[in-house]
């Protein structure tokens, strides 16, 4: 290379280096999302984070999931791995059902085909929403192309091809479409067309569409038959949405899953094993078990509050709502413990006495509790939890930052309502006038007022305006000398002694007098509007929650007698499916090829539909392992695989089960409750 060439190369190289440095300084170099995520804890983990059914869980894949997460923590990594596991399981299940990525229907639509929608459910839905489900149906041929020219070619084909010949795969099929099934722009074009017309290419959603309108059916002529296919699809999709989490968690529990030991990942298999061993437990929250009895009590109380029948059967939705309340209660108690918050028995005793005084006798009081599906013990526990929740929330609420400008704005808007004559009073409550007089005598002889108030709910002096106190109390307190005690004053709950600590006239008040109060109002508003939900959500996310409704369907229950099946004499595996074929894992000859000691029975038509109804299955297929007593000891949703059958079979054979664990987990292993 000549000297001149060397100089040019050197200059070019320097320019490139300078450019890169400049770009880095400006922060515009194209760093991948993975490289950002790798800055966190992920960099310390191995390249291969584990295996799921033979697929490697690569660090880059997890990093991609973490894109946009600043400094990922190990909790973030666990969540990301969980998402990768879910995606893999869904893709795996859909692939079994014949889904090919990038072609045909969407993956979720394919998976939703497992859900069951019975004709009577469709009809009931139609009857319930007939008023809403109205609109014109159109019979059309339609096509979408990338370019306008291609769309024009399709239009020519429509012009030259008869509708009867459109079964040819080259020409789009004729279909009936209902309201809302077309893009809004296409719907507008269609509204201006007459039957027999073909639209010009319409550009919408990045594609050129051509529509051939063949016929119209006005709303007055539409009936359930027209709506049935899409209503069935909708109900199946809804059922799939509701059962998706359970489908995922159980399939995960039976999957061949190995995760690097550095990542302490929640294991669905471990959770499932806990429920298999303890049928009375409905959830395990950070190692604490919630029993069926607790859940039943919670449901009973909720029903009595809404005046619902206490003996009606409990639906899963109702149980889930009640369980989520109990779980939240457990998490709040943990938070309270972290903050050192307690509710003393004396406080509860006083509240109890206030409640009790409203009833003539203990019997009347207990009868009221019984009518509300509760007892003294339950009341005591619920009140403690309620107060604990209030105090814990107040502690978090008090930490919320409030901008001074917001306080100023609130003051400007509400000054007239805030500025009122007020008194700072320490209030002590007594049951009888005599007790109050005795206490007053003691106070006059030197006993501090605080010694009476410390065991009462309001043990600190508070600001009161006229409307917050009985008129008699206000009239007595307003002219009193500061730091003197007035009373006894009759009150709704007994007699009060009032120590007046401070007095402010309305005209003398400024923002500084009300800043704390306004801050409290704004903090409460912020808390109620959004922070409470977020706080609870983050508590749920950080917790280890094993929810029976997400991990089991019929586990530990007695199998219902089903036509065509032999249940209860010998251990057996049964597959309940409405269809047969390799797409649901039931290929021809599967029973013949089965060579394990446990028998395999596949419910075939015509008994299949009845079996699905008897077992109340939300989706099909399901495979169950049933022991010699007819009890379900294992279950598996979705297309069945040989591995899953073998794992279920192993539960019925003398060999040790899949997971050995008899100790409740004490570490944070998360199976999210959804």
């Amino acid at each position, binding site marked *: 290379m000549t000297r001149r060439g060397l100089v040019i190369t050197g200059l070019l190289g320097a320019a490139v280096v300078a450019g890169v440095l400049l770009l880095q300084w400006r922060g515009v170099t194209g760093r991948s999302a993975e490289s950002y995520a790798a800055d966190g804890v992920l960099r310390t983990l191995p390249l291969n984070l584990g295996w799921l059914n033979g697929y490697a869980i690569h660090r880059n894949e997890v990093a991609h999931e973490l894109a*946009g*997460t*600043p400094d990922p923590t190990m909790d973030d990594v666990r969540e990301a791995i969980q*998402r990768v596991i879910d995606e893999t399981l869904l893709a795996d299940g859909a692939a079994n059902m014949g889904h090919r990525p990038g072609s045909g229907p969407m993956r979720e639509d394919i998976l939703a085909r497992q859900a069951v929608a019975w004709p009577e459910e469709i009809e009931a839905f139609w009857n319930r929403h007939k008023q809403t489900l109205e609109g014109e149906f159109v019979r059309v041929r339609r096509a979408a192309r990338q370019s306008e020219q291609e769309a024009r070619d399709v239009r020519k084909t429509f012009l030259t091809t008869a509708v009867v010949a459109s079964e040819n795969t080259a020409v789009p099929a004729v279909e009936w479409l209902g309201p809302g099934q077309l893009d809004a722009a296409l719907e507008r074009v269609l509204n201006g067309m007459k039957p027999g017309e073909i639209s010009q290419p319409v550009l919408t959603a990045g594609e050129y569409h051509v529509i051939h309108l063949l016929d119209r059916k006005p709303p007055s002529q539409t009936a359930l038959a027209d709506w049935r296919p899409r209503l069935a699809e909708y109900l199946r999709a809804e059922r799939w*949405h509701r059962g998706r989490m359970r489908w995922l968690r159980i399939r995960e529990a039976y999957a061949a899953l190995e995760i690097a030991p550095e990542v302490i990942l929640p294991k669905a298999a471990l959770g499932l094993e806990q429920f298999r061993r303890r049928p009375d437990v409905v959830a395990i929250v950070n190692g604490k078990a919630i029993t069926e009895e607790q859940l039943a009590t919670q449901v009973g109380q909720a029903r009595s509050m809404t005046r619902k029948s206490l003996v009606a059967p409990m639906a899963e939705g109702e149980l889930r709502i009640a369980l989520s309340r109990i779980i939240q209660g457990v998490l709040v108690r943990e938070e309270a413990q972290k903050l050192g918050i307690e509710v003393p028995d004396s406080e509860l005793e006083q509240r109890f006495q206030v409640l009790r005084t409203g009833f003539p006798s203990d019997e009347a009081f207990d009868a009221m509790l019984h009518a509300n599906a509760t007892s003294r013990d339950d009341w005591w526990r619920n009140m403690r939890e309620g107060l604990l929740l209030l105090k814990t929330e107040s502690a978090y609420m008090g930490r919320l930052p409030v901008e001074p400008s917001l306080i100023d704005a609130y003051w400007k808007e509400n000054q007239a309502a805030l500025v009122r004559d007020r008194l700072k009073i320490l209030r002590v409550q007594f049951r009888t006038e005599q007790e109050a007089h005795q206490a007053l005598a003691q106070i006059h002889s030197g006993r501090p007022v605080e010694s009476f108030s410390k065991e009462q709910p309001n043990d600190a002096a508070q600001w009161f305006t006229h409307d917050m106190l009985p008129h008699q109390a206000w009239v007595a307190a307003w002219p009193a000398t500061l730091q003197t005690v007035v009373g006894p004053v009759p009150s709704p709950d007994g007699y009060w002694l009032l120590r007046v600590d401070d007095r402010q006239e309305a005209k003398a008040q400024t923002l500084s007098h009300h800043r704390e109060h306004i801050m409290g109002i704004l903090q409460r508003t912020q808390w109620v509007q959004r922070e409470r939900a*977020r706080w609870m959500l983050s508590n749920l996310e950080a917790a280890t929650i094993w929810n029976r409704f997400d991990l089991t369907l019929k586990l530990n229950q007695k199998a219902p007698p089903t036509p065509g099946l032999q249940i209860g004499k010998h251990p057996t595996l049964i597959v309940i499916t409405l269809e047969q074929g390799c797409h649901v894992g039931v290929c021809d000859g599967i029973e013949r090829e089965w060579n394990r000691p446990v028998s395999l029975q596949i419910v075939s038509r015509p008994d299949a539909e009845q079996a699905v109804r008897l077992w109340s299955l939300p989706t099909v297929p399901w495979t169950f392992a049933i022991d010699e007593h007819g009890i379900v000891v294992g279950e598996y949703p979705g297309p069945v695989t040989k591995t899953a059958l073998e794992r279920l079979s192993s539960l019925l054979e003398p060999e040790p089960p899949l997971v050995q664990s008899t100790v409740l987990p004490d570490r944070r292993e998360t199976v999210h409750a959804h």
Partner: protein
Amino acid sequence: MRIKVWTGSPTVLCLVLLSVQPCVAGYIRLDVKPNAQFIEQFIAISAPITNNGDEPAYQVQVSVEGEGRTVSLPAIEHIGINEQKTIAATLPVGPLTSGSYSVIIRTRYIDSNGYPFSTVTVAPASKWTNVISPVVAVLEVRELLLSTHLLVRTTNMGRRASDIRLRIAAPEDLIIDPPEVRFRLQGGQEEQVSFVVRNGFALPGSSYAVYAILDSRMQNLHASTAFATQVPILARGTSGFTPLLILAGLVSLPMGILVLIRLLSRMSVRFKTTQQRNVGARRRLA
């Protein structure tokens, strides 16, 4: 110049006097409390509309918007004082993914003088599950005379990045620019977006509800949350021009008086001169 001062002073004075006149006109307040429910590929909306003002509303026209589609309902001829009318609409939205969505309800009406007004309300609707979005917003807006800025401070409280579509739903009396913005918020990131709010034909002295709607996706679910604020429209009596008008009046009033005095003095001089001339003439005649 002299003529301008002469005619200007009373004009400005009148303006000053007019500007401090109290507003005695009646008002219409239509409270819309919508309820939206997903039914198959539709959102069914029902909303009682109550006139809590002291003047009846006429030609009340309600339209419902959501997911790119709009449905207009037949006009309600009249909603009297304290009267309530309930509307029901069905919005075809197609096969949406599950999650939470926002439906915009626009109400247009006229008063007894035919002056047009409009209000907007946002109703939440959930398909199968109510998603709590980790992205929140705080709205700040100043009083509006001709133009002002609406600041929307968005924060991603979650750990994961989120693609946001932020749009403003405002009554037609106000013009919002741009109507929507799309951006990405990293976990924990805060972003402030500014919208220009122009006064189309908003009534001075009233305030208009404006909503910022945040749409995002959380895994496979759609999340939509609306945050509201009030845009106060400055009445002429409280406008920023009032001090200027008062100042102009204070300056021009003495000037006008001076001009008047000067004119009168000239007239009196002219009168005196004429008198003197008359006296001289009489003397000459005598």
